[in-house]
């Protein structure tokens, strides 16, 4: 029985997929079309009642929220693939800290920019330029903190790659790619080096190739 991941075309499901590839876990995917509103279908809401992506089904076990899913698999398959949780309880604490930073400080502005710049027109809405500008400023301030951190530490939680770094891949890819804001990364020397490192991992290249 293979893990099924819903919604691979979108960013948050990719957070899960890159983790599964790092941990060498077999999986399959099922499409969900947000533009068509498939996330609001009754069958989907039975799996994920908040109508968000992704959700996974692993035999009888259903789980949603991408950052919960990656924690689960990183721990369940601890002994195979890349170690993504650090080695000690304290290193794990730092992984959790930077995962929370990504969720609460990095994600909100970059998500606003994603919705406005990549999805508004597809949904027949006009782009809110003021909101984009405000979000970009917020994101810039967060990236300044990252620049300072990454000048002292190779990866966010320490000298090891972890879920904390991995969690940044999908939306940052949107930023440097279709949003055409690569300068936000390149203008910051250590963030730039960190981005080059994590985005060139074979697992992430595989995700971009497949989806």
């Amino acid at each position, binding site marked *: 029985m293979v893990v099924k991941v819903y919604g691979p075309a979108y960013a948050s499901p990719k957070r899960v997929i890159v983790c599964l590839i790092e941990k060498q876990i077999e999986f399959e995917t099922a499409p969900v079309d947000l533009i068509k509103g498939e996330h609001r279908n009754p069958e989907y809401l039975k799996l994920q009642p908040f109508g968000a992506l992704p959700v996974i089904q692993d035999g009888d076990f259903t789980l949603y*929220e991408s*950052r919960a899913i990656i*924690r*689960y698999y990183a721990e369940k398959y601890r002994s195979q693939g890349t170690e993504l949780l650090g080695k000690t309880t304290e290193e794990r604490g730092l992984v*959790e800290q930077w995962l929370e930073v990504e*969720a609460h400080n990095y994600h909100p502005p970059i998500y606003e920019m994603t919705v406005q710049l990549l999805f508004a027109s597809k949904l027949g809405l006009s782009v809110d330029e003021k909101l984009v500008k405000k979000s970009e400023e917020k994101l810039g301030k967060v990236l300044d903190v990252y620049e300072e951190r990454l000048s002292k530490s190779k990866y966010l939680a320490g000298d090891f790659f972890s879920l904390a770094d991995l969690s940044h891949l999908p939306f940052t890819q949107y930023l440097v790619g279709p949003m055409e804001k690569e300068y936000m990364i390149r203008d910051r020397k250590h963030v730039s080096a960190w981005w080059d490192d994590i985005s060139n991992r074979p697992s992430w290249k595989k995700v971009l190739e497949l989806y």
Partner: protein
Amino acid sequence: MVVKVYGSVKAACPQRVLACLLEKGVEFEIVQVDLDEGEHKRPEFLLRQPFGQVPVIEDGDFKLFESRAIIRYYAAKYVNQGPNLLGNTLEEKALVDQWLEVEAHNLNDLAFNLVLQLVILPRMGQRSDTALVHNLEQKLEAVLNIYEQRLSKSNYLAGDSFTLADLSHLPALRYLMNEAGMAHLVTQRKHVNAWWDKISSRPAWKKLASLAH
């Protein structure tokens, strides 16, 4: 060595950590950070927490921030002391994380913005946005309907026992139900109400609430 918690006993995010430490019987001392004075945005504090947010903990040499990271750390470190707040199996733990994420992404911002509009802005002599309040309330109703569904099938969010997932909701819901006058959001929902009664009656929470309010 006693854990130092930087923050205010009245602020929601530090309360999340304090509730956890009380549940696990871990000794702590609170180092007051004056949020009204903007102490958390000053250079000395930014050295501790570069995003200018509370709480931060210092446990000997070990420093950590982000309340939901701190509670996960202590729940794991002291897994054999006090109640188990992480579930008994990996799958239960995953559900703890799932509902912690739901609280963080679906409920927290709505609750925070309602408290901002209904409690903080008036306290600062500013007017609240009635249309925004109505909008936030409607969204929160929709979220709590999903909680009602879940809690009709399960005693606590992640399963049959109290975990970090339930604990994480205590500070914001208390503010919503008291100072913000939105108790009906909970009391009008049979299972959410029963769940709230159970989790808010826990000795650790009652102890914190008496310290704080």
